[in-house]
């Protein structure tokens, strides 16, 4: 009797609590570790944060000190490609979300939703490889370039990757707009387009923005697919068709060949820390948007 009560009352709760605490601890541990390793560039190697963020002179020393750790090119590359990907993906995502919720819910639920879900599950290396074998030669041919490795190729590959993330979050947001809004809008004599534009979209905006920020966060952290198509040239891009380098590509290129404690390795950890801080910023942004949405209601 007592035993079964124990099982019912405490066992599940204990397991869930332990699991929850474990996740919190793990997150804190990763954060603390990255902070510890990533700050060595500024404490042990005596570089300034301004040099790291705003200088384009990247030539860290493999042994000892005295190199240059300006990561501006990589930082700029990451921001540019992610924002471009967002600009390409958001209109498509929004249209797809509205189509499968407002315009043709049946078709949406039956075909579009599963298709989008399959998209989420495709590994990034597949996107990268398809980009490398189809998109890169295509860009070279279309624009008469010696090679198609470019900011544009990276942005297109990323846009395809973040499209399902934004679409599914935006669709959920549109779906959760109360039915009364629609009825009231129709009651006032609005057309379907007016209903979507004036009633549904504004009401769903916080949710849609959350999807957009989530997409941006995914775009920023993606390494493999982008690295395969941007050409990894250590220079600021002259235009959309020139290659560049981003944070994640530089990290994966050099991490295996540098030794812990060297200035080079420390600078790579600093870049990892930067990535963590940026994703942290995105999450804060999502929280803020959610709060604003809640206040509106």
């Amino acid at each position, binding site marked *: 009797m007592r035993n079964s009560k124990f099982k019912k009352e405490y066992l599940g709760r204990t*397991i869930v609590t332990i699991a929850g605490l*474990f996740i919190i601890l793990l997150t804190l541990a990763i954060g603390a570790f990255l902070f510890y390793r990533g700050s060595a560039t500024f404490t042990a190697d005596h570089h300034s944060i301004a040099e790291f963020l705003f200088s384009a002179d990247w030539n860290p020393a493999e042994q*000892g000190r005295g190199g240059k750790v300006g990561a501006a090119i990589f930082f700029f590359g990451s921001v540019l490609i992610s924002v471009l990907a967002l600009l390409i993906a958001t209109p498509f995502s929004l249209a797809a979300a509205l189509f499968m919720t407002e315009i043709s819910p049946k078709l949406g639920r039956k075909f579009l939703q599963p298709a989008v879900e399959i998209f989420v599950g495709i590994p990034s290396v597949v996107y990268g490889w398809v980009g490398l074998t189809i998109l890169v030669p295509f860009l070279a041919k279309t624009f008469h370039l010696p*090679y198609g490795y470019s900011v544009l190729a990276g942005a297109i590959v990323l846009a395809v990757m973040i499209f399902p993330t934004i679409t599914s979050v935006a669709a959920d947001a549109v779906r959760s707009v109360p039915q009364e809004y629609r009825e009231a809008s129709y009651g006032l004599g609005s057309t379907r387009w007016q209903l979507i534009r004036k009633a549904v979209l504004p009401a769903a905006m916080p949710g849609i923005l959350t999807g957009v920020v989530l997409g941006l966060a995914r775009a920023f952290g993606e390494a493999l697919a982008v690295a395969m198509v941007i050409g990894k040239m*250590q220079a600021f891009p002259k235009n959309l068709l020139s290659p560049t380098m981003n944070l994640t590509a530089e990290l994966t290129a*050099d991490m295996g060949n540098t030794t*812990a*404690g060297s200035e080079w390795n420390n600078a790579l950890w600093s870049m990892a820390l930067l990535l963590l801080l940026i994703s942290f910023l995105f999450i804060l942004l999502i929280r803020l948007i959610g709060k604003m949405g809640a206040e509106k209601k």
Partner: protein
Amino acid sequence: MKKLIAAIMAGALLTASFTACSGNSGAASSSQASQPASSAAASSAASLSGSINISGSSALQPLVQAAADEFKKTNSNLSITVNAGGSGTGLQNVSDKTVDIGNSDIFATEKLSADKASALVDHIVCVVGVAAVINPQVNVTNVTKQQLIDIFTGKITNWKSVGGQDQKIVIINRPKSSGTRTLFKQFGLDGKDEVTGTALTEDNSGLLKQNVEQTAGSIAYLAFSYLTDNKVKSLSIDGVAPTYDNVYTGKYNIWGYEHMYTNGEAKDPAKSFLDFIKSSDFEKTITDKGYGLYSKMTVKRDAPAAKS
């Protein structure tokens, strides 16, 4: 509905925590497995058992893997794992004693601090040459050393300057930290700094080769072990073709030793494995895989002194 969700959530968490537990126990048992290895080494039995963990250079990994497969035929109780990850990782791991052998394209003194490097024992198992390679459509077969330097430092930007067609030169580099790039820069470019800002980079030698094949007017560099077919064209330098015969005689000087480092003198089973790789039985595999024989070298190089 809520109950159902809660049940599913609890189920998911349970499985997650169980897999986490089993993962832990797996790691624990593997670390225990390395204990008997050292005791077996002490008794030095005829047929070896235990395990050898190896990590490091991705250029050397295929050869060491082939050696491991052959060596295990006569030592079926022995387990050998060979990971790549880069020369830096290999040197770091063997220095930390997380692996038994660390593979490297370059001398330990070039990556590690002096005191760490001095603890390691170098086993040179073979040599590897590095060739400048170009897209097969470029009609150049030979460049002078100075022209090669001018191309990679950005002074020459068109193939017509070195006797080829009127086409822009596209440089494709390996990452700065790569062992192949270090060798090529040191001996191919006499240590001159490569141009930055106009060169593409490719992490992986296999992908780099495909890249050179597809990109018009491209030039890059690859270890001889990647040049077993004619998909890319290799350049002669000052009339000397990139072949092992020329490496052995010292005529072609872009080559490096392939090192397998142990922390302190090698002990069994790692010692027997290293002896096997250096034995004459294994020479055929070395040359078949596109590496060169250390025993045939008529020129020698010393490890550079450690910096700071």
